Structure formats: structure tokens, C-alpha cells
């Protein structure tokens, strides 16, 4: 590729990164100032939180069951099956709960955010809002960001809990004492793990909302453009969730 073209692409890339942070900054600032768009916020909370409940329950239940099953298989030769609760808990709370629920919400909510905002862009509704004097970052972005920052940790916690319930059923099948199952949970965990278990999903929620809105606002090229933007947002968000999970884990380990 000619150097000039590469340089051009790099420039575009950095411009986009800069735009992303600028948008994020303005969206976060918007959380603390009027108008609050209470109705918009409640609508979003309902759609993001309540709307994602079912798939998150399903994900949590089966993940918990399969993890318990695998762990039981490993622990059985050591006569250590009573530790299965702790093993499920620690992996779910720190890693799988946040990551899996976030990936589910990305597919369901992130794509919808991009499609919705993208449609508003290509049908000139966003322009119309700006002409009518609305701060579109506040109305469209902040409302979603706020809702997801609240919903995402809750969804992750629900995922964790349901996974433990699923694990419990599997353990019961292996004659693990229910009391032992419950007691093994705190043995494997420290308080910081619980913090990790809500900070991570909150950060992933930030990524879902901000990438969804950013890509949506940059949509061009009609209905086809909306489809492409939506796909792009899902891919980008998923990748960034997995990558940032690694670095967040590193940070949490450093603070242990």
C-alpha cells in the first residue's frame, strides 16, 4: 500500500479515536447536569435492563451448570467435590458473569442502540433534533449510558447468582451436601472479588453504550449503512470487552 494511503488511514483512525473519547467525555459530563431526560432514561433502563433479563438468566443457568459439571468431574478423583460451589462462584463473579452477560447485552442492546441512532441519522432526525435546540449527546447518548451503567452490574450479579443455582443442582446430582456447597463459596473468595464483579460489568456497559452510540452517530449511506454500522458496533464492542477484561484483571491483581 502506498505510504500516503496508509498515512491517510492512520489519520482517520486517530481522528475517530479522538472523537470517541470526546463523545464519551461529553456523555459522562452530561450525567451530572440538567436536563436529565428522566422519561428517556426510564425507557432505556426498561429496555436494556428488563429486556435483557431473560437471555441473561438463560446464559447464567447453563454456564453455571456446565461449569459445575466439569469441575465435579475434575474434583471427584480427589474426593473434593464439596468445593464445587467455590469454584463456580469465583470464576463466575470475576470472569464469566461480567463477560458473558456483557456479550449478551452487546448482541441485544448494543446492536439496537447503533441501529436506532443510525436510523435517526440517515432519516435526518438527529439533524432535526439539533435544529430544534436539543443537545443530542445528552438526549441520545447520556440517557443510554446512564441506564446501562446501572443495568449492567445488576445483570452480571443476576447471572452469577443463577449460575450458582445451576451449579447447585448439578452438585446435588453428585451427592454434594447443600451446606458444604454454600460454605465453600466464601472460602474461595475475597471481598475484592465482589468489587471486581461489579466494576467490570460497569466498564463493559460503558463500552457497549459508547461504541454503540459512536458508531450509530457516524452512520451514513441509508438503510444498508445502518445494517453495516450495527454489525460493526457488535464486533468492535465484543473485541474490546474481551481485550479490556484482560487488562482490568491485571489491574485488579496488582491491587490485591
Amino acid at each position, binding site marked *: 500500500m502506498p505510504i500516503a494511503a496508509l498515512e491517510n488511514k492512520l489519520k482517520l483512525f486517530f481522528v475517530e479515536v479522538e472523537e470517541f473519547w470526546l463523545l464519551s467525555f461529553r456523555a459522562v459530563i452530561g450525567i451530572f447536569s440538567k436536563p436529565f431526560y428522566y422519561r428517556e432514561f426510564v425507557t432505556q433502563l426498561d429496555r436494556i435492563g428488563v429486556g435483557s433479563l431473560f437471555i441473561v438468566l438463560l446464559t447464567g443457568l447453563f454456564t453455571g451448570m456446565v461449569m459445575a459439571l466439569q469441575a465435579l468431574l475434575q474434583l471427584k478423583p480427589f474426593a473434593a467435590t464439596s468445593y464445587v460451589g467455590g469454584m463456580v462462584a469465583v470464576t463466575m463473579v470475576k470472569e464469566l458473569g461480567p463477560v458473558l452477560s456483557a456479550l449478551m447485552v452487546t448482541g441485544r442492546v448494543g446492536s439496537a442502540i447503533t441501529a436506532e441512532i443510525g436510523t435517526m441519522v440517515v432519516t435526518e432526525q438527529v*439533524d*432535526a*433534533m*439539533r*435544529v430544534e435546540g436539543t443537545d443530542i449527546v445528552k438526549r441520545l447518548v447520556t440517557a443510554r449510558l446512564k441506564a446501562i451503567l446501572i443495568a449492567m452490574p445488576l445483570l452480571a450479579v443476576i447471572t452469577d447468582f443463577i449460575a450458582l443455582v445451576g451449579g447447585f443442582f448439578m452438585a446435588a446430582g453428585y451427592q454434594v451436601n447443600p451446606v458444604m456447597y454454600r460454605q465453600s463459596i466464601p472460602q474461595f473468595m475475597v471481598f475484592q472479588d465482589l468489587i471486581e464483579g461489579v466494576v467490570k460489568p460497569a466498564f463493559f456497559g460503558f463500552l457497549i453504550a459508547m461504541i454503540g452510540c459512536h458508531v450509530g452517530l457516524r452512520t451514513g449511506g441509508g438503510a444498508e449503512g445502518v445494517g453495516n454500522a450495527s454489525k460493526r458496533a457488535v*464486533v468492535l464492542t465484543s473485541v474490546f470487552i474481551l481485550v479490556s477484561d484482560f487488562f482490568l484483571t491485571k489491574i485488579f491483581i496488582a491491587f490485591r
Partner: protein
Amino acid sequence: MSPHGIVMDKVSYSVGGRQILKDFDLVLTKGVNRTILGVSGAGKTTILKLILGLLPVDQGRILIDGVEIGALRESKLREVRRKIAIVFQGGALFDSMTVGENVGYRLIEEGRLSDSEIERIVLEKLSFVGLENSIDLYPAELSGGMKKRVAISRALAAEPDYIFFDEPTTGLDPIGVYNIVDLMKRLQGEGKTTLMVTHDLHTAFAVSQRFSFLHQAHLVFEGTREELMAAPDETTREFLSPSERSLFRFTEHPHQEHQTRTITELE
């Protein structure tokens, strides 16, 4: 020059590597309604968005009643923009809101008036376009012509001095066109100044006193209807009465790859 009116002074704008406007001049004097003519894709919508500050100019100045908008921050821009309303090509109604909420959008946002006051104004603006009975419908339930009429009544809610129309009659049946033309004339009668962009000459002549013709980024004609009909340059004449040769003159270059694609695309 009088500070009243809208002025574009040698404005240039390009996007995706394509020059849309080059040293484009425009004067919209209060009370003198203007139409900007040009083929599809010429950059007519872009002109309206530049004046509204929705897009930034590359070069040149835009003045609204003497205030240059290029240097303004978004919050200050909002104040100046309040004098202008726009009826977008497809209406651009907010599809999550009812017709009434669309028309009252700005008033609800500003939160200065009481609900009953807002409802009174919304009804008044809707009855101006003859759609007071559609107040509780959603945009998806309206025809194309009705959408444009709702968009007009939404534009009126801010009591603007200037109203922009982006291809207001494109895609409407003759009754729809008549309706819109009639509305535009009534608005002009009430002292609003209209700026329309279109390729529809018939409507243009019905509602405007002055005309600009945009072709390949340049302003190739500016003047009255009589001057337009007697325009000396060939491009303008062929736009007015196309012949076989116009095919070559007006054929668009293939569109550029869309500008917003970047290397963060991972798919």
C-alpha cells in the same frame, strides 16, 4: 449590506474527497423568497445544513442577521438557529413520538410553557396545515404528504423568521404538491422568508422571486425568473429544457466511497 438576512460568502465545502461547493455565494434577503436549483446530488441539502451550522464550512463565511456562525459554539449556535426552521426532505419526524409531541417538541424541551399552553400552540400549528385530527397518530401512520405537513407545523412552533424547505414537493402527487405550494405562499404572506432547494421548476416558479443554480460545486446563475429564462450560459439553459446533450452534462460521477469508513472496521 443590511444585517437582516442570510449571507453565504465564498463558501467551500468538501466531503469524502469530493468538492461539493466551491466559492459559493448566496444572499437571502428578508422578504425575498429564494430557490436553489440543481440536479440530485449537486449539494443542495448540504447548503441548508451548512447555513444551520450542522456541517462546518471548509472556507468562507456564513452570516445570519449579521452574526457569523463559523466561530460560534454549539450552545450559542442554538440561539441563532432559533430564527431558522427547516422542513427536511422526508419530514424527519421523530418516529418514537406522536404528531403532537413532534410539533410541540421544542416547546416541551424548553420547558417554559405549561402543558395546556403547549397543547394550544400545537393545535394551532397543526390546524394551520389542516392536520389537527392527527395529533395522536404516530409518523408511521401518515402518508408522505402528511409527514411533510406535520414537519411544516413543527417548523412553525419556534416562530422562525426563515423557513428552509428541502425538496418539499418531491415524490408527492399533484394534490400534495398543490397543498405544499399553498402552505408556502400562506407562510410568505405571514412574513416568513423561505429558502427552498429543489429540482422542481414548477414549484420553484410558484413560490420564489429569486433563483440560484448550483452546478458542479459552482454557482452558475443567480437572478430573477425573467433573467433565468433568458440565461445566456448553456448549462442553465439545458437544465431548464433538457435535450439529449444534457445527458452528458449532468451525468453524475460515480459516488465516492462513503467517508466514515475507517480502519477500525474489523469485520
